[in-house]
Every structure is written in C-alpha cells, then in structure tokens.
C-alpha cells in the first residue's frame, strides 16, 4: 500500500525541505533511536543553555514521514525549556504536520523517543559534570 499519497502538504514540505539537518556544534545531549533492521533510525542532538534548548538538529534514516517528523520536532523544541520539550508528544508532532497516515504514526513515535533520549543524555552528562 502506498501511504504517501496520503501525505499532507506540510509533510511533503518538511520532507522536501527538512529544517535543521545535521549535528549541533556543541551538543549538550544526543539521542539515537530506532534500528536499521526496522527501517528507521533517528539521531537528535540538542544544545542546552540555562535549561533552554537553543539549538536542535537531526539526522534520520527512514521514510518520508520519519524525515518530516524529525524536521518538525526540531522546530517545535527550539526555544523551549527542557520541561516544556518533554511534554511534546508524538501526537503533537503529527498534528503539527496536519496529520500522518495511520500506518505512519509509528514514525512520530521515533521522533518523541529521540527527543526523550537526547534530554536523558543531557541529564546524564550533567550528573557526570557535577560529580567531577
């Protein structure tokens, strides 16, 4: 089944012109989730200053929906505090894209998981810093 004839204009826009591709210059946290055997892997890096995500960039191996949700989540978390960012759900990401085809909803879970993993990584690094 072709799901992508059901992609919204917003999904296509973020797929064609993904925002924030790459790795932030000074990563405060990095999350890598997914599995190439499952067909999608997302790497999200964030730069945090005074509890605020000042930059976020992604690299994604995955279908059109995975790339679009990756791009969208970076847009949504930039400028947010870590607490606010943690409240960004996969559903919110999908909604911001005008919805995803049902079979593609798992792609938005990948984005949420990557976000949590990056923030986790940031907290872990903070702890290590504090121990020093």
């Amino acid at each position, binding site marked *: 089944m072709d799901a992508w004839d059901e992609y919204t204009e917003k999904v296509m826009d973020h797929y064609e012109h993904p925002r924030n591709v790459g790795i932030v210059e000074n990563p405060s946290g990095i999350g890598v*989730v997914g599995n*190439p*055997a499952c*067909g999608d892997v997302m790497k999200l890096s964030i730069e945090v200053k005074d509890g605020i995500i000042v930059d976020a960039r992604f*690299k994604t191996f995955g*279908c059109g929906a995975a*790339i679009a949700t990756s791009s969208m989540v970076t847009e949504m978390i930039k400028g947010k505090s870590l607490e606010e960012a943690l409240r960004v759900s996969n559903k919110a990401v999908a909604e911001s894209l005008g919805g995803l085809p049902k079979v593609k909803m*798992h792609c938005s879970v990948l984005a949420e998981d990557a976000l949590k993993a990056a923030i986790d990584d940031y907290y872990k690094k903070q702890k290590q810093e504090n121990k020093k």
Partner: protein
Amino acid sequence: MKSIYMDHHATTPLDPEVLAAMMPYLTEEFGNPSSSTHEWGRRARKAVEAGRAQIAESIGAEPDEIIFTSGATESDNLAVKGVALSAAGPKGRIITQATEHKAILDTVRYLEKVGYEIYYVKLDSYGLIDLEDLERNITPQTFLITIQAANSEIGTIQPIAQVGACAKAHGVLFHTDAVQAIGKMPINVNSDQIDLLSLSAHKIYGPKGVGALYVRKGVKLAPLIHGGGHERGMRSGTLNVAGIVGLGKAAEMAHRERDQETRRLLKLRERLANGIRAKIDQVQLNGHPQQRLANNLNFSFAYVEGESLILACREVALSSGSACTSSSLQSSYVLRAIGVPDSLAHCSIRFGLGKSNNEEQVDFLVDLLATNVRRLREMSPLYDMAREGIDIENFSWSKHDHEH
C-alpha cells in the same frame, strides 16, 4: 518530464492493438460462447477458440490444454489445489521454494494446515534453487513440484528445464508460475517438460482479470469452481470473451516480439545498471547478475530508506522492498528469503522496464537517483556511522517496536 512508468512487474498498460482486438466483444459481439443455438453464440465461441490457439501456440501446447481463469492467482490455486485434491491416496508432499508468489505460498500453507507436507527447496543468495536439494527431497509421497519460471522482485530465472527433467524422471507433476517470464524468455511446455503453467494477461500488455492455466493432457485436476461444466469441467463460469480475445492477442504479440524486445530491454537494463553503478557508490544488486529477467533490476542503496527514495523520485513509478511501502510493515519476504539483511531490504528499489521505456528516461532516472541518494545520505545517520567505520549490522541498536 512527463511521469514515467517503470513498474512493469506489477502490471503493464493495455496495448492499443490488444484493445482493438477486444473492442467488438465489448460491444456488438456480446454472445455467450456456450450458446450453440445461434450465430451470436457461435461467433463468441470462435473468438474464444482463436484466443486459446494463440496462447497454446506461444508455449508449444495444444489448444485443448488451455483453461481460462480470472488471472494467475486463480491459475496457481487451480494447479496446486486441483492436483492435490485429485491425487488419490493419503495427503502427500508438495515441493516449492520460498520466493514464489503469494498465490503459491499461501495456497501451500493452506494445504499444509489440512495435512499435506510442504518442502521448500534451498536457495542460494541469488535466489536460485539448489537442484540437488530438490532431487534429494523427492519422496515417494511427492506428487507435485511447483517452481516459478522467474521472480517478480529480483528477476532471478529458475532452471525450469532441469526441474522439468527431474520431475519427469521421478514421475512427479511439475507446475510453473510463468507470469513474469512470458514474453521475456523462451518457454516451451514440451522441451521444458512442464505439466502445468500459469500465465496472466495484464503482465503482457493485456487486460486485467483474465489468465490461463496450461494443463498437460492426461493430468487430472479437481475443479475449484463448480457449475456449468465449462472448460472441460475444470473451471465453470461463463467465459470472459473480450478478456480471452485480449489475452490471446497479447500472448501472440509477446511471442512474436519476444526476441527483439528482450534484446532492447537488456540493453536498456545494462544502461540503467551501469549508470547507477557509475554515479552512486555502495549499491548492492539483489538477485542473479546474469540469470535474470531482461527487464528487471533490484538495487539496495545503502543508508537510504526505500520509501524516501521513491518519494524523492516520484516522477518515475517504481517500487521498493522496504517495510514502509507495505501495509504489513514487513520488508520484502523475497529479499529476506535470499538472505538480504533487513537493513538493506529496506533500502531496495525494484526497476521494471517495459515497452514504453527508452534511453532518455533511463538517463533521467539515473541522474534523479544520484541526486537524491546523495541528498538522503547527507541526512542519514547510518551514512555518518559507516564513514566513521562503525559496523551498522553489529551495533547495539535500541529495540524499536512498530506495534505502538
């Protein structure tokens, strides 16, 4: 550039000559070929028999060995279940292999559930069957071998003449699903020693909804569809006259044009393969390098997920073995059966060349692929990891469950 159709394993456009041959039977010639009491019926019967003769001629069969069906799925079902249900004695063994079309795989799985034994012949990494393994596993209980002529995803051509000889030597019936092979390679039911053969009209520029099963004289089949005793009792139901005329015409044309068109497709295929290899690195060919259909290529573009690449190249109609193009979220069972790792199966693209494709389109596609593979690799974390020398297959990935 106008959209380009390059998915000819899925289906082909109806040839205008075929449509022209069919038209009278969709309009004024509406007779039922079973009506023997008037001209309308007799003219319809004549058209059906002409179609039967054309199909028979194209595979070296006799006209009365051709049974019309609704398509190759029905032909496969009729061949396998028909033979199984007519075979006397206890439920025996059927030999097949793992890259068959689902019309075969689902049918033998069903028969397995009701007590038959199924053996899947070993395959090499190109998808070729192991003939020794085949012969070793023919038991006294074996009554049918069903091996496709060529695969629709990876194009691998099976050694059907050898399978036929082996089946004959052991007194076992041999069925082949020749849907993808018709018109692209010579097939003769006598020299290849085939007892049953499935074919479909819409893969050879004919209409959808019509196919045929060749049944060698003397082979007994139990019908799946009972009714008015049409097709010598093996397949009841009023005949699809226009469809049969179309199938006959399409088979005749495919047979007549085969050598010339195959040579043209081979050249086009090599142009596409060479173009891809010259402009894109880290590509893997899936399927056999030589023993493959003239119109088929299947490449995995490492680190680039297939659906995203198809989406990027959507001016060209292609297909992928990626899970993201299937509703089951499973990667291609064919690629998995020949040992292609999932991570590469997701990156596979199938190219199915056909009559309408030309060099200009192939060159356009090569450039389109090169541009977008580059773009998507720049976006791919796997590409970075590979460049850093990290082994992607053995990296400890997080478990990612698709069933959220």
